[in-house]
Each structure stands twice: as structure tokens, then as C-alpha cells.
């Protein structure tokens, strides 16, 4: 067996291989086993790993992959003459079940294997996959669904995900006319109709600690027979737990130099990291953002006197360059790769013997996943270092180490299925075959994320797909499905089906522009020779728009000078040697601190007996905070107010993650405005936020008892939130993504000329108009649902506001406290899209005034 990455995944295929080897090729009918992985590269990787044993054992089994890269003729052949085992991705599976031949192709499917299920179920891709799985269960009653997962907090949620949660209608579409809806009757799975019993199993790898508390310590075994299945209750897949091997060797990289109070570069630790690279075979250096990756890569090369092969890998780099890095890594030619989450998931290239994670881990389960990249053998410990970049991150790293030691998990809760994804799926099902709405509804509510879907919401989704809803009723071409006299819905025409295929999926990339290296004509500043150089990669359009000619920034491991935008390309030149990048790119974490780690950090701060376990610089810092202000208890909210440089500040420390704090900052600013305290701006990080204003807030609090309680009252999530959402650029962006997923607007495809700005304008306008005229439109509801957990993290903010009722501890201080300094340092660093535009304008205006007066 292959030494790495083989255990769990190949085990999932064993039942299929056993079954297939027992039947002659001539007796097989269609596709036997489907394997779905979140990454294209992973599917290809697994195919390779699977083909080796199949060939060695001489099994008469055909294994093929089907990804976006599969050529058209092969795809056609795969439908006509399907392989025994097909490896694919959720998006390709969605296309497959929307195919006209899907019911024939999949009717005899025996087994579906969902790999890295824990990673898939937390996103809209998981919603899409769950709907596809429901269709598979319906097309092929008796199908076995196998989920492969790392350890999760709630394995039962995965077990439910694999099984139909409601009785399924018969495989073929009914021919009956429109039926009167009774909504969902209260049928229990026990009352299920004539469908054959369905089998499913979730293979879960436990954390390598005995008291993980998972029910079955049995070794790997084949999926159980129906008689022993369902042990966890109705509608749940069987759970098979694989015990892990040695405990991970996880440490915090201690630095004898003092760490800053804020910032994410970890530049103090670079020499130590470089030393680790020298001492190991291959090191994966994980960072949280692309910009951190760029910075780290450059710093390491600055130290690289031994000229070790150190590479860079992140999603914005040119695909060819990424492939080169991956190939070099697989061939064992690299000593270190600086990478972002693009390498998070289970691809095992090369022989990694150390993982270094720079910056705060943000979540215990995430860090476990990353550690797992090192030394994939079960009997040897994975070795990893956490590298805090500032003093707060030391606290977070400590909390994460404790969590890993206790094998505690903080994977997110199960999702409620998104409506925009459902709209996409409904159109897909119409592409596959005419559908009866009631039967499709029954099928959809059998998918775990959609069990709570009401008939009315389903009707609203169908209406949206049929007409675009009120917003688009005026355009006939947006009627994507039509209802025939037989009561069945069909896709409107071949063009609509084609459009569906082009726009499949739930991953909406933000508009990107290419970065092209050009030569500048020095004699004539501003004159460049366009289109002469090579493309280095892509940057987000939003970022490109903030650049002005002459700005320098880090990209692809180099300091580049921005020369201008030309169509959809950013022209850059190499900055002269020794130039520092001028644009203070936001280098914080993309992921917010998990609720679970946040609670541990709060507990750590609140308990001085724990401080012994912290490096001295952090303990000293906490002692200082205690003497100058106060340290809040684990459930308290500390609020400090203080003057500084003609401004008055309010800092609060909810420890709920940057996204929730940004939302809180917006809402607090509104309320302070209303209280005539004239707020000017705010800054937020993962631990707290600071708002500054021109009037004395300490005085307002002293004058008016209950002022703070009212300021932080839960009702801010009512009207204030609504009013803010009306103009929030982040909400508009969320809406835009829903609009793409639900097919309101089309994705941009390579080669298409720049229409991104146009799309932006039109979706923003649709958003405004819908808010005004149809606030309950399906897409607005979908966007609000996303906002609750996504960019705005409203749900978490709500939980926090509830927690702190009556637990606000206020200190009016003469000057900024040690804790508050950390947030103050975020000021000017942070970029909040589209907010506070007037502040920028006012500042520019003030300069005009100064000139006029001076």
C-alpha cells in the first residue's frame, strides 16, 4: 500500500472493489461507484492511488476521473460507456445528475463515497452536494453512501447528511397533473414507502487521544448490513471510527524577543523558522492570507544563505506556476513551501516532516487538519509548530494547544440549506427531465440541510426560477423553466440548459484582474509598453482599484510598482532594489477566531493561575492590564473609555472574531452618532474593537446611568442593522454572490471582455430596488441568511449581545490601557470595503481648506 494518504480513502473503496471483482464485466450495468472529492487535484491523486492496487491485483475494474479538465469526447464516452468507478467533484456531480441520460446512467449505482466530508458540509458546496445525493438516493434506491471525514465535533450531523431524512418518491417523474399541496405531512422515516432500505456509513478518524468520546473504537470494517445499521437512530448512517496513532508533537515557537501587540507578520520569528527548515526534510509553512504568504516567502529568502529550495503557493498565482511548485513538491525537490489554505485539504505531495503555522490558528479543528499534513503515517507523531505573530496570538496559540491536547473540536454547526443553491439545483433538475413539483419537493427535503424547507419556500424558489421573481418578470428570457399542461416543469430551451451548465457551482470568485509585468519608459514617466511582459498572476479587482500609479506592493514574491490599469490587466514594473512595499495590505486572518477558541482565550485571561503557562512577556502584559484597568471575567464584556490626542475612544473586548466586531463597530457608530457623540471611525481585530469620536464619551456614560447597557442592547440587531444593511457594501457583495449562484447573472468566463463593473452596477441596483419594492425576494432572503454567518457574522454578534446582558464592566481611564493598545494599532491598517467613504473625502477636503487658509 502507498505510504501516505492511502488508509482512509482506499478503505472507502474496498467494498466496491470486492463487489466488482466478484462480477464479470459483462454483467455490470452502468456506473457502480462514484467518488466525490472537494478538490479536482485530489480526485486525480486518488485515481492514481487506486489504479496501482487494482492493476497489481489484476482486478477487472475500470477507474476514471471526470473533472473540468476532462475532454468533451471522453465525457461523452463516459456517459455512453460508463466506467465502474468514477472520481469527480461536487460541481461535476451536479452536472452529471442534470444530464438527460442521468437516470439511465445512475440507476444501478451501488455506492457513493464522499471524501473530506467534514470540509464540504460547512459550505454551500455541501448544500449542492446534499441535493445531488438526494437525487442519487432516489435514482438508485438501496444505494450505499459512505462519508470519509476527519474528526468532527458532531459526527451525528454527518451521519444524517448521508441518509435520506424523509421518504423518497419513486425514481421516475410522476405523470399526474398539479396536485394540491398539503405542505409536508408529518411522516416519519419509519413510514417510508416502497423504497428499499438505504445504507450509509461515515468513516471518521478520531483524534489520537483515547478520551475522544466517540462511540465505536472498532477498527475499520465494511459497511454494516441493514440489520445492524442505523444504530444511532433513525435516518443516520452507521459510524465507523478509526483510531488514530501517536499524539501530535505540537509546540509553540517561543521567541526570546518581545512580540508586538498587533500585526501579523511574525518577522521576529523568521530566523527561527528558517532554522527549522534547515533541520527538516520538507516543511509546510502555513499562513492565513495571500499577503502573509508573500511577506513570509520574501523574508525567508532574505535569510536563505544556503539557497534552500523554498517555494510559494497560493491561489492568486498563475496556475502554471502553481503546477510547477506542486510537481517539484511531489518529486521531493523542495525544502519548504509557504502556502495558504489552498493546500489545506488532503493532498499528500512529498514527504512533509514538519508543519509550521504562522499566525493564530483561529480554530482547533483547522489546526488539527493542518498538522495532519505532516507525516501521514498513523503510528508516528505529526510534528508541528505554532508561531504567534503578536502577544494576543500567544494567548490564542496556548488555547489551541490546550484544545488539541484535550482533543476538543470546534467544527461549525450543520448548515441550513441555502435558497440560492436550491434555485440552481431546481433548474438543473429541469434540465435532466420534466419534474413534478411535489415529488421534487419530497426529494429535496430528504437532504439533511433542507429537511426544514417549507412548501411555501420551495414554491418561491420554483417561482423564482420560472420568472426571476418580480424583479425580472419584465424579461421573458429569464423565464428559465415552463410548466406544461401536464403540470410538469421543463427547462425552457437548449440555450437555458447550456447557460445552466456554464454557471454551475457555488464558488463565486471575486472579480480579478491579471497582473502583467511590463517595462516602463523611464524617460517619460507614466509611459509604459503594454502587453510586452508576462502575467504574474491575478489580484482582486477591489484591491487593484485602491492602487494609484506609483504605489508599490508585494506580489509573487516581489515588490512591484503599479503603473496603471489597462482593460482587465494591472500593469506593473519591478520596483527598484531595497524598495519597501508602500501599500499596507491588510494582513490579518481570513478566518475569524472560532467561538470555541475565543471562550478558551477569555478563560485564560480571567484566571491568573493559568498565566504561569504563558511566556513571561504575555504574563507581564496581563499583569499590567490588571493594574492599569481590569481583566474581565470569562463571561464579561470589558469596555474602556479614554481620551487621546483630542479624540475620545471606546474600546470593547468581546473576543468574537473580526467579522462580528466589524459589524458591531458599524452598529455602535450609528448609535453613537444618534447620541450626538460624533463618532469618526472604528477599527476591529479578532479580540476587540475601538471607536473614536470628538465628544467625551466617558462623561456621557457618567452622566447617564444605563448609557452603556443601552448602547450594547440587543435591539441594535433590529432597525440599526436593517438600516446599515441597506447601504452596506459587504451586504451588496453577499447579494451579488447569491445572484450568481441562483443564476440571476452569469459568471464571467475566461476570454470574456470586461463586464465586471457593469455586473456590479446592475446587481447593486437590483439590490436597492428589491429592498425597496420586494424585501422578501428570494435572493434577499438568501443574502440575509448568508450575512448571518458570513461576512457580517450577525448570528455570533447576537449570541454575544445576549451573553453580556448585565455583564458590562466599564472603566473610564486617563489614557489607553495595555489591552486597548492592541486594537488601537489596527487603526489605519484595516480596510473595510465601501464604508466610511465620507471620512476619506472629508480628509481630502480638509487638505484643500488647509491650503486655502495657509
Amino acid at each position, binding site marked *: 500500500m502507498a505510504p501516505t494518504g492511502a488508509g482512509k480513502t482506499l478503505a472507502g473503496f474496498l467494498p466496491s472493489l470486492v463487489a466488482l471483482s466478484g462480477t464479470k464485466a459483462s454483467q455490470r450495468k452502468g456506473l457502480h461507484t462514484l467518488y466525490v472529492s472537494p478538490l479536482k487535484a485530489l480526485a486525480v491523486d486518488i485515481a492514481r492511488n487506486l489504479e496501482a492496487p487494482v492493476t497489481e491485483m489484476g482486478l477487472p475494474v475500470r477507474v476514471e476521473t471526470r473533472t473540468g479538465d476532462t475532454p468533451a469526447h471522453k465525457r461523452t464516452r463516459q456517459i455512453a460507456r460508463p466506467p465502474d468507478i468514477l472520481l469527480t467533484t461536487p460541481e461535476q456531480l451536479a452536472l452529471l445528475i442534470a444530464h438527460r441520460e442521468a437516470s439511465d446512467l445512475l440507476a444501478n449505482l451501488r455506492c457513493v463515497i464522499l471524501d473530506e466530508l467534514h470540509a464540504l458540509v460547512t459550505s454551500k458546496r455541501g448544500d449542492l452536494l446534499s441535493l445531488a445525493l438526494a437525487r442519487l438516493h432516489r435514482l438508485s434506491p438501496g444505494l450505499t453512501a459512505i462519508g470519509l471525514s476527519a474528526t468532527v465535533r458532531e459526527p451525528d450531523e454527518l451521519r444524517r447528511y448521508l441518509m435520506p431524512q424523509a421518504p423518497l418518491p419513486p425514481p421516475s417523474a410522476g405523470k399526474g397533473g398539479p396536485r394540491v399541496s398539503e405542505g409536508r405531512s408529518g411522516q416519519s422515516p419509519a413510514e417510508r414507502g416502497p423504497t428499499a432500505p438505504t445504507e450509509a456509513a461515515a468513516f471518521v478518524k478520531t483524534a489520537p487521544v483515547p478520551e475522544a468520546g466517540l462511540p465505536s473504537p472498532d477498527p475499520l470494517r465494511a459497511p454494516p448490513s441493514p440489520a445492524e445499521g442505523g444504530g444511532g437512530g433513525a435516518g443516520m448512517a452507521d459510524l465507523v471510527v478509526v483510531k488514530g496513532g501517536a499524539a501530535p508533537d505540537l509546540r509553540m515557537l517561543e521567541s526570546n524577543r518581545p512580540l508586538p501587540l498587533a500585526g501579523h507578520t511574525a518577522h521576529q520569528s523568521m530566523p527561527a523558522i528558517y532554522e527549522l527548515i534547515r533541520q527538516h526534510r520538507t516543511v509546510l509553512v502555513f499562513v492565513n492570507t495571500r499577503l502573509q504568504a508573500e511577506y513570509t516567502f520574501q523574508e525567508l529568502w532574505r535569510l536563505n544563505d544556503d539557497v534552500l529550495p523554498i517555494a510559494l503557493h497560493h491561489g492568486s498565482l498563475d496556475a502554471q506556476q502553481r503546477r510547477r511548485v506542486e510537481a517539484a513538491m511531489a518529486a521531493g525537490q523542495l525544502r519548504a513551501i509557504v502556502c495558504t489554505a489552498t493546500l489545506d485539504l488532503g493532498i499528500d505531495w512529498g514527504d512533509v516532516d514538519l508543519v509550521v503555522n504562522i499566525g493564530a490558528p483561529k480554530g482547533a479543528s483547522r489546526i488539527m487538519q493542518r498538522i495532519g499534513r505532516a507525516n501521514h503515517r498513523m503510528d508516528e507523531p505529526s510534528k508541528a509548530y505554532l508561531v504567534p505573530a503578536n502577544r494576543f496570538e500567544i494567548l490564542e496559540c496556548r488555547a489551541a494547544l490546550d484544545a488539541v491536547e484535550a482533543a476538543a473540536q470546534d467544527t461549525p454547526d450543520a448548515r441550513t440549506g441555502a435558497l440560492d443553491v436550491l434555485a440552481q439545483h431546481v433548474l438543473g433538475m429541469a434540465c435532466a427531465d420534466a419534474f413534478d413539483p411535489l415529488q421534487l419537493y419530497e426529494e429535496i427535503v430528504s437532504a439533511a440541510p433542507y429537511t426544514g424547507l417549507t412548501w411555501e419556500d420551495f414554491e418561491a424558489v420554483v417561482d423564482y426560477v420560472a420568472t426571476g421573481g418580480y424583479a425580472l418578470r419584465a424579461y421573458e428570457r429569464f423565464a428559465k423553466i415552463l410548466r406544461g399542461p401536464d403540470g410538469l416543469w421543463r427547462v425552457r430551451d437548449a440555450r437555458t440548459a447550456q447557460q445552466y451548465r456554464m454557471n454551475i457551482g457555488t464558488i463565486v470568485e471575486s472579480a480579478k484582474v491579471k497582473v502583467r509585468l511590463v517595462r516602463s519608459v523611464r524617460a517619460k514617466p507614466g509611459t509604459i509598453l503594454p502587453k510586452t511582459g508576462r502575467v504574474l498572476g491575478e489580484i482582486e479587482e477591489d484591491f487593484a482599484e485602491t492602487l494609484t500609479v506609483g504605489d508599490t506592493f508585494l506580489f509573487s514574491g516581489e515588490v512591484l510598482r503599479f503603473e496603471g490599469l489597462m482593460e482587465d490587466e494591472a500593469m506593473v514594473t519591478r520596483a527598484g532594489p531595497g524598495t519597501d512595499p508602500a501599500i499596507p495590505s491588510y494582513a490579518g486572518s481570513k478566518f475569524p477566531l472560532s467561538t470555541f477558541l475565543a471562550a478558551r482565550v477569555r478563560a485564560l485571561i480571567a484566571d491568573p493561575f493559568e498565566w504561569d503557562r504563558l511566556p513571561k512577556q504575555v504574563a507581564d502584559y496581563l499583569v499590567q492590564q490588571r493594574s492599569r484597568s481590569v481583566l474581565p471575567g470569562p463571561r464579561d464584556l470589558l469596555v474602556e473609555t479614554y481620551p487621546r490626542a483630542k479624540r475620545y475612544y471606546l474600546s470593547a473586548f468581546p473576543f468574537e472574531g473580526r467579522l462580528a466586531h466589524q459589524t458591531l463597530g458599524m452598529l455602535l457608530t450609528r448609535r453613537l452618532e444618534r447620541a450626538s457623540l460624533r463618532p469618526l471611525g472604528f477599527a476591529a481585530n479578532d479580540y476587540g474593537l475601538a471607536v473614536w469620536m470628538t465628544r467625551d464619551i466617558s462623561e456621557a456614560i457618567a452622566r447617564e446611568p444605563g448609557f452603556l447597557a443601552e448602547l450594547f442592547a440587543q435591539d441594535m440587531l433590529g432597525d440599526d442593522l436593517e438600516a446599515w444593511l441597506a447601504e452596506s457594501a459587504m451586504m451588496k457583495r453577499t447579494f451579488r454572490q447569491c445572484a450568481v449562484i441562483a443564476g440571476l447573472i452569469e459568471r464571467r468566463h475566461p476570454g470574456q471582455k470586461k463586464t465586471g463593473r457593469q455586473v456590479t452596477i446592475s446587481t447593486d441596483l437590483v439590490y436597492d430596488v428589491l429592498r425597496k419594492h420586494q424585501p422578501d425576494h428570494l435572493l434577499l432572503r438568501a443574502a440575509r441568511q448568508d450575512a448571518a454567518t458570513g461576512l457580517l457574522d450577525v448570528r455570533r454578534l447576537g449570541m454575544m449581545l445576549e451573553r453580556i446582558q448585565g455583564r458590562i464592566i466599564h472603566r473610564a481611564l486617563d489614557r489607553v490601557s495595555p489591552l486597548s493598545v492592541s486594537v488601537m494599532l489596527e487603526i489605519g491598517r484595516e480596510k473595510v470595503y465601501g464604508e466610511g467613504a465620507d471620512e*476619506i473625502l472629508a480628509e*481630502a*477636503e480638509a487638505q484643500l481648506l488647509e491650503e486655502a487658509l495657509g
Partner: protein
Amino acid sequence: MAHPGPPDEDAILALGQRLEKTQKPAGLTLAGEDAVLDLSGALWLPAHRTLVVSDLHLEKGSAYAARSGQFLPPYDTRETLANLHEAVLRHDPARVVALGDSFHDARGPERMEPGDRAMVAALQEGRDWVWIAGNHDAAVQEGVGGRYADTLTLGALTLRHEPVPGAAPGEVAGHLHPCGKVAMRGRAVRRRCFVSDGARLVMPAFGAFTGGLNVRDKAFDPLFPEGFTAHLLGDGRVFAIGRQMLARD
């Protein structure tokens, strides 16, 4: 679906009062005449009780949809008219001047929905309404009320669609859709703006779907040889920004 009709008057008045409190009117003197720059992009000339709006580009959305199949929602006209309605309520003008390119193309008026047409009629009631000819809508339009003119003179001011090259004291024009961009600390804000040097004024496009030309574009150079101030339409008020603070795109 019933046409939503003009927004609720009370709500508009309340909004107006709120804006009056928070927003000091941005004013400037243009060839000796007082001019108020409305946050909506309209120009208010109090001495003439005249409200000027430029480049409405009504029915641009339907023009695109008809021509290219490129989707733009059919709301631009309604949105633009609603904004105009708010500006009219704020100032109660005796005269409204649409400074050209009021319709995106010659067939725009035909495509206009009946509800939108009624809203235009309601806005025109009891006031003088002048359509200045633009390059998109040079032909005289039928069935949209008002009167037509190539230029209009009000005191020291000459109102026309396209600015004339060379010095033109007192000229109020549109056509260029000026936008200003301010970039600072890694952030950029790009907004529609009025552009003026105290002698002449170029107005921002009022229409909902109109793009913009950066005021640093060379098209503006011959109009303002001595430099200019751009009055950017912010979220809460109008900001006067000097040319040197404005970035190119």
C-alpha cells in the same frame, strides 16, 4: 404587478428635513450667480427657482436589453425619476431643466412604461419643463411633455448640453459625466462630481446607470486651463476637493 408609483410624500419630507439638519448645503458662486449643489447631483439656482439635472439617460436599461441581450434590470428609469422626484420635493422649483441626454436613445420615450410616463407628467405639472437637446436625444421627443431648446439663458448663465471649447463664462453643461477619485491609505473612493473653476460648471450625470469619466482625463483640460475644484457627491454631503488631491483611474 402594480406600478409602485412615486414614493410616499411624508417619507420624502421627513427625509428632506433630516437631510436639511445634517447637511449644510454646498454652494458656489458661478459667474456671479448663487448655485446650490444638491447631493443628488442636481443643481439648484435659487434666484431663478430652477432645478437643473443633466444626463438622465432614461431607458438605458431597456436600450441595452433590446440591443445586446445584455441584462440590466428594468429599473433605471424608475430609480432616476424617484431621485428626481425627491430633489423636486426638496426645492419645489418653478422650472426644471433637463440638460440633454435625457433619454438614452431616440426611441427611449416609446419604450417607457406607462407608470414612468405618468410620473414624468406628474413632475411637470405646475412648472416649466425644458428638455435641452443632447447628443443621444438630439431629435425632438414626442409625448413626454415640456418644451425643447438647444440652450437656455438664465441671467448670467448659459445652459447647454455639451461644453464648448475655450473660455465660456457662465456656462452650465453636462455630457462628460465627471467622476472624481480620491485614494488614501490604500483605499480609494470614486464618486460623481460637479466640476467648476468659478466661471463654468460641468454637472454630474443624474441617471441611475451612467458611468463616469475621471476629471483627471484630458477632456477636462481645455475647459479648465487654470485648474478646478471637484465637488464630490459623498454619502452624507458634497465634498469640495482640490485637483491635486484627485487621482487618475
